């Protein structure tokens, strides 16, 4: 069953430099209890997609069109009050920066508490107990003591655990994780990923994992969506994406990252470069956004914008090679 289905979402930011087409016709589907990986470089629109789902796009940003079907209802049609009942409760989100994502002036128990009090009608005392319980679940040592701590008394990894505890405290159907490990050290990253996978099993929560790190995606995602310049360029099964990437961007990306153990004493394989830079989001081009950087570009690519073509039931690619 599809718990989340985004159809032709367009989100724009009306800035001083013009309108940024941050999310430009994005469609994706996520099954209940699944892990969907969204991968892309900075500015590819992956975070904006997540915020659009959460209904947290503030002016000057605006969702222009499309629908966000959550469990069958279009979130865009909900009032702010109804949306609030979903946020944190049925869809929750954790962010990239654990250092700044917690209110420095409130104790951990108050920050988790205010959420469960809102959504589960617990009393203050019950919420505190619940908080300790949650902290225990995310493997924070001495949860009773830690619940009374302020964020600044914790390390980054610890704070991200608190964020996860908070996000999971209302047992949501979807957890959106926006680069949850990027700011963490490798050893801590491993801890957090491990924890998320464990909890996913326990809570049967679907995870929308947003990251730029192909390694993380390879490790946890079942389905993968590759985004480039506000659009989905390829989606499919994780094995298919990594073994047999169809879009030139996906394949170049995979070839461009150094891999451990590939270099030998005698030879150093040259990394494949993707030439040029990411296109800006302010102009709407009449040709493929990847055209200027594409190693396989043809003349036709400069004349036409490719559409997302379904290859099979759960994979699709946006490239002229596969059109027609």
């Amino acid at each position: 069953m599809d718990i989340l289905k985004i159809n032709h979402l367009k989100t724009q930011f009306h800035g001083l430099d013009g309108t940024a087409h941050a999310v430009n016709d994005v469609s994706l589907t996520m099954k209940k209890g699944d892990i969907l990986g969204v991968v892309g470089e900075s500015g590819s629109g992956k975070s904006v997609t997540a915020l659009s789902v959460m209904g947290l796009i503030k002016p000057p940003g605006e969702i222009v069109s499309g629908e966000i079907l959550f469990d069958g209802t279009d979130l865009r049609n909900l009032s702010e009050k109804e949306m609030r009942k979903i946020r944190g409760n049925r869809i929750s989100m954790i962010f990239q920066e654990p250092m700044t994502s917690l209110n420095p002036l409130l104790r951990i128990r108050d920050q988790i508490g205010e959420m469960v009090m809102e959504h589960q009608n617990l009393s203050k005392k019950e919420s505190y107990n619940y908080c300790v319980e949650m902290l225990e679940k995310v493997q924070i040592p001495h949860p009773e003591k830690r619940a009374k701590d302020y964020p600044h008394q914790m390390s980054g990894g610890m704070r991200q655990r608190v964020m996860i505890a908070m996000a999971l405290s209302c047992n949501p159907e979807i957890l959106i994780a926006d680069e949850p490990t990027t700011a963490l050290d490798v050893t801590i990253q491993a801890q957090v990923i491990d924890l998320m996978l464990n909890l996913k099993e326990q809570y049967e929560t679907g995870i929308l994992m947003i990251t730029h790190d192909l390694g993380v995606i390879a490790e946890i995602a079942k389905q993968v969506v590759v985004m480039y310049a506000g659009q989905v360029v390829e989606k499919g099964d994780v094995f298919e994406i990594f073994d047999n990437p169809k879009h030139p961007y996906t394949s170049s990306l995979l070839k461009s990252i150094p891999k451990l153990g590939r270099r030998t004493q005698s030879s150093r394989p040259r990394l494949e470069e993707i030439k040029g830079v990411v296109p800006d989001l302010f102009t709407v081009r009449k040709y493929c956004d990847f055209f200027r950087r594409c190693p396989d570009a043809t003349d036709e690519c400069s004349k036409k914008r490719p559409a997302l073509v379904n290859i099979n039931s759960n994979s699709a690619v946006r490239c002229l090679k596969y059109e027609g």
Partner: protein
Amino acid sequence: MLQYVVKRILLFIPTIFFISLIMFFILNVLPGDATTMSGGLKRQLDEQTTANMRKQLGLDQPLHIRYFKYMKGIVKGDFGKSYLRNESVNLLISERIMPTLQISLAAILIAVGIGIPLGFISALKQGSWIDTLSMVTAVSGVSIPQFWLGLILMYVFSLVLNWLPPQGYGDGGFMHMIMPSVTLGVGYMALIARTTRAAVIEVLNEDFVRTARAKGISELAVNYRHVFKNTLILILTTVGLQFGSLVGQTVIVEKLFSWPGIGSLLVDSIFQRDIPVTQGCVLVIIGVFLIVNLVIDLLYVVIDPRIKYTESNR
């Protein structure tokens, strides 16, 4: 914590000492002294009396000896004796400090009571006409020369509407306080409104506010628990630092409304070359400023758990 307070209070000493040194020498090289002033130009004072007077006031002694004597008094908490009035400076100031604190406090209340909500609403409605309106109001507040504003208030509320007494202390009652406090508070209010607006906008962009929104709690809870509390820290600094300029402005307001505070005493004493009184007033004003800022620093601890005044960090 207590240790920190004691340390801070001990740090007042070099500040006060330094300021008293500067003020003493500035004031003592002012052209004219208490004797010329008390003589004035209209009424002639004969030479013998003048000399006699200078001797009595100790003005015939060299500057450094006078300073030494003065500091000796200060250490004992004695600000000396007024040149013109046969009263101790301590007494003079103690009579005048309350009225000044009264209007200063009222002004702060007005400023904070109006300024913070104004800035807050303005920031939440950033870019709307409410924002523009309240900010233009706020900026207008700082753009009017104070005595002009005071006179306009006096004209409107005393002469035309006959609601408020135009001047004076009365019995120190509420009605007499309104106009001086408002005149004093308007500029301060504007400043706080603008600071609040900037601070709120800054806090609104913080990650934790986004987290709070993502939690699905009510907008009121987001604004109060997450935005307002964090804003307060930024506002407090302004309130503290600008307190000094507020006290500076009382000079004008007190003169205008014949308010018997320390500001008008200070102006009188400067013009009359009553140096001990001037010194005393300045030191007391600075003392109040230092204490207010100490209190604000301690308030930080209450509001912000990150700040702990233990030995290592400040």
